[in-house]
């Protein structure tokens, strides 16, 4: 029986990688639970409030976006709209070209991964240096991130020490402090030489035009401190209505993502340097990226646009822990990715239509989500969509015959009686692929079809007492 691509990926994952992903995500989840339950009596109330605020934003993007554009313009920022990944890359390139910029320092942004900005700029002769330590290591190793907030969760320190040695950053040393120090030394002069800095935005506030970027390394601040041009690359859904909503969201993103009460560095950028201000970039550009999001908005899965990219659902997900992030073949892995990635593809949805299948529908993702996204429901909707579009699903038994029996009580009873053949035939002789797949890993209990119904009839006659069979 054929299995699913993500199951195959999990089966062939190197034990070293699996251990790194498993431990990294498990620890992340445990710390999150501890800090939320330690600080709040009922953290679920925060999650549901945050979910309602973001759902409100998602359903009113058509009014929030123009209002935000006007606010940003009034603050002196230039606003760009990019419908596609290419358009977004071109917009960033055009900004850089107009300034003759050749060197860009980048803070971590998932949207830049999504649109392939790094490769695009490299092709156009622009050096775009990742300054988040994890992303820097990914870039150095020509690898891909495998987690939304811990891009190198799949690597261990020995692999990183070897990489640094190979790339001339210093002799082998696996001490995390030394690894960090070497990356810093490498980056310091890059910040000073850079012509522009690019960040993402965790939140953009509609009422104030405030762009909020959180990091734990301070690299976003460095990206802004020494450059004259700040480019913000942000998905159109990252809006919060009011500045005061930040109290809730900064609180939740830090606790859910990294189990901190607040992230170490929180940048609040309201615009370019104003006259009289001593420092800061002279130019500020905000590039709003659609790249499939309006399609998601039009779908029955628009709730996924609430996501604030904290990674909590990845950490708790038993499937992610077994398969790792690369198995999802897309920028967004784990439960959120299993919903978002196929949707962002638009008409190419079938290419990633297997992702929503990669879930036991256990619901742990919904339980930890800071914006209470009903991820299992969305996965189920996408399964129905994939089936409706005729996308083949390896390993999923066809349901037509089962539905026929389950709507015909006589046929159902006949099947209950006929199933006893299972107790007498070796599985290899039974032409039901799902049964073989079951038995590849597990014993099947003895078939007892119809026995309960017989027992109940006897009991009704006053004869059936006690256990049917001893345990």
């Amino acid at each position, binding site marked *: 029986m054929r*299995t*699913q691509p993500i*199951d195959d990926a*999990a*089966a062939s994952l190197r034990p070293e990688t699996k251990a790194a992903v498993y431990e990294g995500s498990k620890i992340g989840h445990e710390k999150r639970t501890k800090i939320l339950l330690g600080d709040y009596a009922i953290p679920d109330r925060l999650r549901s409030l945050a979910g309602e605020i973001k759902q409100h934003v998602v359903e009113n993007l058509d009014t929030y976006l123009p209002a935000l554009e006007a606010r940003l313009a009034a603050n002196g920022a230039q606003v760009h709209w990019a419908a596609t990944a290419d358009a977004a890359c071109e917009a960033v390139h055009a900004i850089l070209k107009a300034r003759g910029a050749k060197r860009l320092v980048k803070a971590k942004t998932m949207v830049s991964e999504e649109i392939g900005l790094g490769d695009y700029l490299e092709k156009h002769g622009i050096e775009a240096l990742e300054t988040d330590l994890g992303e820097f290591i990914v870039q150095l190793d020509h690898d891909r991130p495998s987690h939304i907030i811990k891009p190198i969760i799949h690597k261990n320190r020995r692999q990183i020490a070897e990489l640094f040695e190979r790339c001339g950053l210093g002799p082998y040393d696996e001490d995390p402090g030394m690894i960090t120090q070497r990356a810093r030394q490498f980056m310091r002069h890059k910040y000073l030489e850079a012509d522009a800095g690019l960040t993402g935005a965790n939140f953009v506030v509609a009422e104030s035009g405030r762009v909020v970027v959180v990091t734990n390394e301070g690299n976003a601040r460095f990206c802004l401190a020494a450059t004259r041009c700040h480019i913000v690359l942000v998905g159109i859904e990252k809006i919060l209505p009011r500045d005061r909503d930040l109290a809730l969201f900064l609180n939740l993103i830090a606790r859910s993502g990294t189990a901190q009460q607040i992230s170490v560095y929180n940048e609040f950028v309201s615009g370019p340097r104003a006259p009289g201000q001593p420092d800061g970039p002279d130019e500020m550009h905000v590039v709003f990226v659609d790249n499939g999001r309006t399609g998601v908005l039009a779908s029955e899965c628009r709730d996924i646009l609430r996501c604030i990219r904290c990674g909590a659902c990845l950490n*708790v997900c*038993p*499937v992610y822990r*077994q398969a790792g992030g690369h198995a999802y073949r897309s920028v967004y892995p784990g439960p959120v990715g299993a919903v978002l990635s196929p949707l962002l593809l638009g008409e190419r949805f079938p290419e990633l239509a297997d992702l929503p*299948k*990669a*879930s*036991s*529908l*256990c*619901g742990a993702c919904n*339980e930890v989500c800071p914006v209470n996204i009903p991820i*299992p*429901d969305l996965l*189920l*909707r996408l*399964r*129905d969509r*994939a*089936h409706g579009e005729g996308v083949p*699903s390896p*390993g*999923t*038994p066809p*349901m*037509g015959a*089962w*539905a026929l*029996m*389950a*709507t015909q*009580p006589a046929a159902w009873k006949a099947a209950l009686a006929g199933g006893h053949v299972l107790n007498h035939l070796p599985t290899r002789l039974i032409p039901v*692929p799902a049964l073989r*797949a*079951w038995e*590849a*890993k*597990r*014993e*099947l*209990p003895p*078939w*007892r*079809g119809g*026995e*309960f*119904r017989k*027992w*109940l009839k006897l*009991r009704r006659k006053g004869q059936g007492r*006690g*256990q*049917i*069979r001893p*345990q």
Partner: protein
Amino acid sequence: MKLSSGRTPVVGRRVQLMATCLCDAFHDDVAAATVEVLEHLGCEVLFPEGQTCCGQPAFNGGDWSASRRVVRHAVRTFAGEYPIVVPSGSCAAMLFHGAALEFEREPDLAEIESLGRRTWELGDFIVNGLGVTSWPGRFNSAVALHRSCHTRGTASSEAVARLLSSIAGVRLVEFGEAEQCCGFGGTFSVAFPHISAAMGDLKLDHVRAAKPDVLVSGDMSCLMHLSGLAAREGILVMTMHFAQVLRDALARRA
């Protein structure tokens, strides 16, 4: 999964048993124990003979139109006003949550929701439907309670834990990563056999480390997967549905 809206209050003691397809085919003793437990509580247990399945296999498998046919059959089979009691958190959640999702745009959504409002997982029914919070008799065992995933956000797991811990001789033992799924997941178990088995092995490791006499759950699907894995690996793990524990405790009343 959560109950969508207010549940129909329980009036009287006449109930309809939905045995579940797994008990119909494999775990007859669990269905029988459910009958004995409900009758002990003074319930008159009706068993609609035409019952088959809750529709979940196709719902989870993505074939919602096939699933809706089966759910409609359940609506016809369990007509009337009596509560439907199910010895499975998963099948119950299918009827009060999943079915509502797949019938969102269907003309008969109201009937589906009415079925859902009458549907109770067994432990939830005993504790919150009937208001019974302690159980007589004796069951001398260290019990590890696996809280099945489809009871997340419902009152079921707490209800079952409350009933079990009220039984003389029962000692509930905690085990690691209890919030993690056992790896069954319906069609997931056969379409993702490696991940499913790896998840089950982790669960078994945690449970065995707590050294219980018996692993108890309110869902036979989880237990069938876990005991099937254990048997294949030559490990002895005793599993029981909590209805069987309640029934066996009754036999040892003082």
